[in-house]
């Protein structure tokens, strides 16, 4: 899953360097974590196999649908929305979309969910 791994690495790199200095974005890879006690945090995962090309009776070029989630107490996502969309665009331009944007009244968190397609 090289494309996925590089995407995860890129999303993880948002916690360093270019990220806003006072904010960190804890990132869980291919899974789901408990709520970290931070203003914003993210999750990136592969949700399911979306498609595959068969050749020589074997699956090749498997396409996965995955998602990147941002949870933030800030209405505008504390700058992470732009950074995440830029990162997604750099890795799979034209194969991602904002699937959902909601507000959780119980926790006071805003939730963005982007879905993307990557090949292994």
């Amino acid at each position, binding site marked *: 899953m090289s494309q996925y791994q590089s995407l995860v690495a890129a999303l993880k790199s948002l916690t360093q360097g270019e990220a806003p200095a006072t904010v960190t974005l804890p990132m869980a890879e291919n899974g*789901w974590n*408990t*709520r970290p006690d931070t203003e914003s945090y993210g999750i990136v*995962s592969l*949700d*399911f196999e*979306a*498609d595959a090309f068969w050749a020589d009776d074997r699956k090749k070029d498997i396409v996965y*649908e995955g*998602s990147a*989630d941002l*949870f933030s107490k800030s209405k505008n996502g504390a700058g992470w929305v732009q950074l995440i969309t830029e990162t997604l665009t750099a890795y799979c331009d034209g194969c991602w979309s904002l*699937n*959902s944007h*909601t507000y*959780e009244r*119980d*926790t006071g*968190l805003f*939730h963005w*969910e982007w*879905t993307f397609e990557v090949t292994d």
Partner: protein
Amino acid sequence: MPYEMKVDGMAEISDMLEKMAEQAQGVASQAVYVGAGIMAEEIRKGAEGIKTAPFKYAKEGTRLPSPEEKAIVVAAGAGIAKFDKNGTEVSTSVGYRASGYAELNGKKKPIPLIVNSINSGTSFMSKQPFVRKAARTGGTKAMAAMRDKIENAFEEMIKK
């Protein structure tokens, strides 16, 4: 010596094409109906597979959807929206947008919100993207069925 070339029966073909054009929207609607039905069925199957655990509030920690939430989603079923017709372009959407409200833990909650929290997850509930997955698996089947419906309808017209 020149060869004579003649085309006859164009009036019949012209009549047939005219008839096809007149009935194109009806055929397209039938095809969309068939495709939408397949998508709704795939979503229903996906909803049946939602994993559940007893309900707890967000402040009590992470959880899965409750059996009550799943029952609401399964009972609501994915609906097919009113068809949008513009000439031969016919479209609709399949989902829970107009599913209304359901009583959950003594409160009325919009069903689309319950579906969204399961499909996209929340900060206290992992996602189970059953609608997205159904759109993937059902999309190919729906497309094939729609194509068959259109081809069969026009074949019938030609035979008449």
